[in-house]
């Protein structure tokens, strides 16, 4: 567990040592206390030497203060290292996710990535802090206390040598028995939560089929199962406390008996006997803490596994072998024998043997039934996914010859699912170009037909968007996303069904703007409506991953069955 996370502790490499140092001081002070007390009783009181008594009392107070400071510093270093490593892990995860390719994200699923970054990482942080403090403290306490006990009397110390392994082994077995039980408890929790989740998501189904009674019974069964598993696991852990007490009490009696005999024969003083009693609780307490930390560690194992999975996933899309950062010359695109499937699964090919070219500055329209591979096709151009076979050229060069950053900088893409981020409209638009002037921003918004509705907001461009742009309509969001893409001044602009919520008239104005104001930009438009792409230089009809037709509107109409069919369904209404 520790090994896989050590790279993230580099900044804090020395902290465990500091921790060890201060906690050692604290422990030594604590362990010496009973000896001072024994001296007071056996020498001070016996000789009625008040100075001796007060002197050693003072030493005890000073020791306590030193221990207090050392303990607090130990806590500081443990907390700093623990939260520091936690923050570094979180940062490393965020970085890893930023570098993930689209297919990495698809595989993990967004919600699972979020839990890994939040809950799992916090678990690890808490365990690290506990480990640093208690894992250091307990063994030190054990060793020092036993050493000092031996100094006082070897025979009596044998009691610890019997009791410590007894308690250690018992606790070990308790933890070992408990671990698999907690594991199955976790599964019971997962099952219970699944029933809950499915019920809440599907509550309309449950209610409309009147299945409340059955759902309650289903939940009751899982609930009972959960209780059974919980009791099964906790029953074991419950032995911790009594075992600990049993050992402490047995030691007390043994110390009092054997120690009593030794005092009787004047081998040790009464004070020394009392100091032994003090050691009993110190030593056994530290063992108790160890078992507590071990339980914590076993519970955190799963979290570490899940976090490491994220950290160790490397994006399969990289530009490591690109040495020279060449700029993208223009927006010409060529596909040569391109095959593509998600996850490289050739049985499930999304795109098959695609061949086509677009000249720089031209407009390509893509149309075709859902699931025909339109969105997949355009995502290949900025290397959001890598192809299985074939070559893609942008600006006359294979896209694998560009640095990914350079390639993506020259391609702007408006995705089907529009994401805006919390912040002002202006800030969102500036994602396209962080150095954009107000004029440029306004111009891009005008091209995207967004300027007017932005100005209708009381705060205009300073209007604050909620997370995900919740306060905008679908069409407004789409237009902002288009403006954001235009602002990037790309060589290639891709609109993936990006005007579906915009009415036909505005849609037409946006296309006009592309035509007049972006003459050098290659534009690819995926659309459902023929009217959105009829004016394009080329139209591609995509069907089941293959090019079914390629040509202008006039060429396709009447010759391409799918195109004609779509045209007729959409136009017939208008003509009746």
């Amino acid at each position, binding site marked *: 567990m520790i090994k896989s996370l050590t790279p993230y502790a580099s900044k804090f490499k020395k902290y465990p040592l500091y921790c060890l140092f201060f906690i050692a001081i604290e422990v030594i*002070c*604590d362990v010496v*206390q009973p000896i001072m*007390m024994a001296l*007071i*009783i056996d020498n001070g009181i016996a000789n009625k030497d*008040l100075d001796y008594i007060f002197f050693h009392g003072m030493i005890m*107070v000073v020791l*306590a*203060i030193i221990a*207090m400071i050392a303990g607090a510093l130990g806590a*500081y270093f443990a*907390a700093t290292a623990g*939260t520091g490593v936690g*923050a570094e892990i979180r*940062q490393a995860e965020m970085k890893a996710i*930023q570098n993930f390719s689209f297919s990495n994200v698809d595989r993990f699923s*967004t919600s699972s990535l*979020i839990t890994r970054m939040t809950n799992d990482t916090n678990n690890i942080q808490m365990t690290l802090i506990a480990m640093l403090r208690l894992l250091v403290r307990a063994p030190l306490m054990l060793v020092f206390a036993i050493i000092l006990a031996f100094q006082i009397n070897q025979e009596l110390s044998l009691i610890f040598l019997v009791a410590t392994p007894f308690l250690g082994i018992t606790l070990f077995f308790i933890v070992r028995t408990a671990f698999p039980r907690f594991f199955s408890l976790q599964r019971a929790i997962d099952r219970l*939560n*699944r029933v809950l*989740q*499915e*019920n809440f*998501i*599907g509550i*309309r*189904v449950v209610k*409309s*089929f009147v299945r*409340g009674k*059955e759902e309650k019974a289903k939940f009751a069964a899982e*609930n*009972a199962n959960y209780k059974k598993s919980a*009791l099964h696991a906790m*029953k074991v852990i*419950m032995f911790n406390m*009594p075992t600990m007490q049993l050992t402490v009490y047995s030691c007390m*009696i043994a110390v009092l*008996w054997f120690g*009593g005999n030794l005092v009787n024969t004047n081998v040790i003083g*009464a004070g020394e*006997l*009392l100091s032994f*009693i*003090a050691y009993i609780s110190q030593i056994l307490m530290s063992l108790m803490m160890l078992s507590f930390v071990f339980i914590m560690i076993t519970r955190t194992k799963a979290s570490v596994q899940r976090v490491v999975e994220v950290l160790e996933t490397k994006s399969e899309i990289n530009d490591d072998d690109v040495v020279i950062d060449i700029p993208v010359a223009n927006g010409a695109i060529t596909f040569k024998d391109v095959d593509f499937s998600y996850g490289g699964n050739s049985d499930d090919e999304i795109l098959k043997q695609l061949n086509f070219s677009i000249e720089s500055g031209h407009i390509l329209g893509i149309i075709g*039934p859902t*699931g*025909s591979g339109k969105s997949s096709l355009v995502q290949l151009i900025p290397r*959001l996914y890598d192809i299985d076979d074939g070559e893609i050229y942008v600006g006359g060069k294979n896209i694998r010859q560009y640095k990914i950053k350079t390639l993506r*900088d020259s391609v702007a893409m408006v*995705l089907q699912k529009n994401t805006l981020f*919390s912040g002002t409209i202006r800030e969102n638009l500036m994602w396209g170009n962080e150095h954009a002037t107000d004029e440029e921003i306004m111009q891009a918004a005008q091209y995207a037909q967004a300027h007017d509705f932005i100005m209708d907001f009381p705060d205009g461009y300073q209007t604050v968007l909620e997370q995900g742009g919740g306060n905008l309509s679908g069409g407004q969001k789409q237009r902002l996303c288009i403006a*954001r893409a235009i602002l990037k001044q790309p060589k290639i602009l891709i609109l993936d069904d990006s005007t579906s*919520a915009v*009415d*036909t008239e505005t849609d037409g104005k946006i296309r006009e703007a592309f035509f007049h104001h972006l003459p050098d930009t290659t534009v690819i438009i995926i659309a459902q409506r023929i009217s959105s792409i009829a004016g394009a230089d080329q139209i591609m009809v995509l069907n089941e991953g293959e090019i079914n037709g390629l040509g202008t509107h006039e060429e396709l109409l009447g010759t391409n069955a799918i195109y004609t069919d779509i045209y007729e369904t959409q136009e017939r*209404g*208008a003509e*009746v």
Partner: protein
Amino acid sequence: MAKQKSMKRKPQHLAKTLQQLLSYLMMNKLALFSVVICIILSTGAGIAGTYFIRPIINDYILPGDLGGLARILMVVGVIYLFGVLATYGYNRIMIQISQNTIQKLRQDLFDHLQDLPIGFFDRTNNGDIMSRFTNDVDNIQEALNNSVTQILAAFLTITGTFVMMLIISPILTIVIVVMVLVMILIIKVIGGKSSYYFGQQQQFLGNTNSYIEEYVEGQKVVKVFNHEDEVMAGFDVRNEALQGASQKAQTLSNAMMPILGNTSFVSYALTASLGGLMVVRGMLDIGSLGSFLQYSRTFSQPLSQVSQQTNTLLAALAGAERIFAIMEISSEVDDGTVTLERTETGNFWLTENQRIPVVGNIELKDVSFGYTPEEPVLKHINVWAKPGLKVAFVGATGAGKTTITNLINRFYEIDTGEILYDGLPITTIKKADLRSTMSIVLQDTHLFTGSVMENIRYGRLDASNVEVIEAAKLANAHDFIKRLPRGYDTILSGDGGNLSQGQRQLLAIARAAVANPNVLILDEATSSIDSHTEQLITTGMDQLMTGRTSFVIAHRLSTIRNADVIMVLDHGEIVERGNHEELIQKKGMYYKLYTGQIELD
């Protein structure tokens, strides 16, 4: 419908919540009583054991009475043994109580949720409801498992120890009392500071988490805009703030233990010196000093336990309060008296004095409705439908299409007007019976973990395997099911995640078919489905609709061209009605929708 979030950390109505929680605990009165007895025995044994140091040293060890020592140690041994057994006893009984309580609480909450009106689920985030079951119930469980017994034991220990100290030496006790006051002060100061930083940590954690959520969800856009570095920079700021706060919070809470522990060493030192002085002056004997010292050492532990566990307890009470708040929301009212009788020859409505055959005639008369009184969603709607008739609703987003279906099966109650089912006002029919004669197929298909067979049978639990397969065939689902690795026995997991959207839709249609309803409500799927499956779904739905009263919420106009009546909704009103040809000719709203001049969704 704004989703509401409620995440208050401190309980607002402490007394009331405590009382409610206690009423749950009190279901285990006898067990609870035994727990208290066991805790008394357990702490008593510990306190007594320490006290015995005094007579053991004074009366047996120092005088050298070894026979007596053996005898008294036997007595102490027996007391200790009872103590250990009592400790095991209360821990064991307490987890039983806590698990019983938690099980009951969880079941009551779930059962109550099942009875809540659909409006509650529309208003509340699923995540919020889930967190009642996870975080809140967990907090209560944690408190019941440990805090209750620990706090009780700590109080008993403190009181018992204090009494014993007074008995041994009132003068030394004053020293301890002063030191305890110092400790309480330390707990107050450090605890107060640390809870301030914990609050801050919680706030920064929330900030960081929502940043993570936003940008992990929008990661694809981040990549498209090459914005990774900026996102990282924003993240680092939040991550550092979080680390700063949690470092302080953790330092303080971790420092509490060594500080308190060593404060008790100070009182140990003071007792040792002062006690030594008293022994020298003959005011105290060594045995008394011995047991007093041991008491003074153990005083800090129960104190820090109380301060720790109080936090856990407060968190549990805050959680309990949120749970009880849900339990206080009133259940869906069902005051219908008309019931359904299922017979071989058909189904009948049983009113007080009539037996009306279930046909499926539905009539909406002048229906108005709004989710909130200020915002009417539907205004004066009149619709009439009978078996074999397909009624389609179209309109732009927010026109109120989906709302109509919420009213027919009484997910929501209408404000004015009347809905009649075979001539009976639906408010007079028992809800369960009303709904069991209707099936809805929603645009988001929800399946449950279980086999394909079980998922279809969800529509009618007593359907035979043959009937399930018949329904699947009717819904065009049979072919793809046969091709699944284990056919009808294939286990679906995670809301049918291993099926495509289209396949899930087909299963939902089969599920509706097996219910053999009189009335069908179909909300068309909007998400991407390949053309082949789309064809299967359309014909499956058409076959299902044959001979039934059907309401279709249309998201694509191509599928409703064969509807008998199309209702065009705009801002809650039916602005046009007629069949496809009539409406096209009218060149009104429908025409605009159809030609794409107005966007459908």
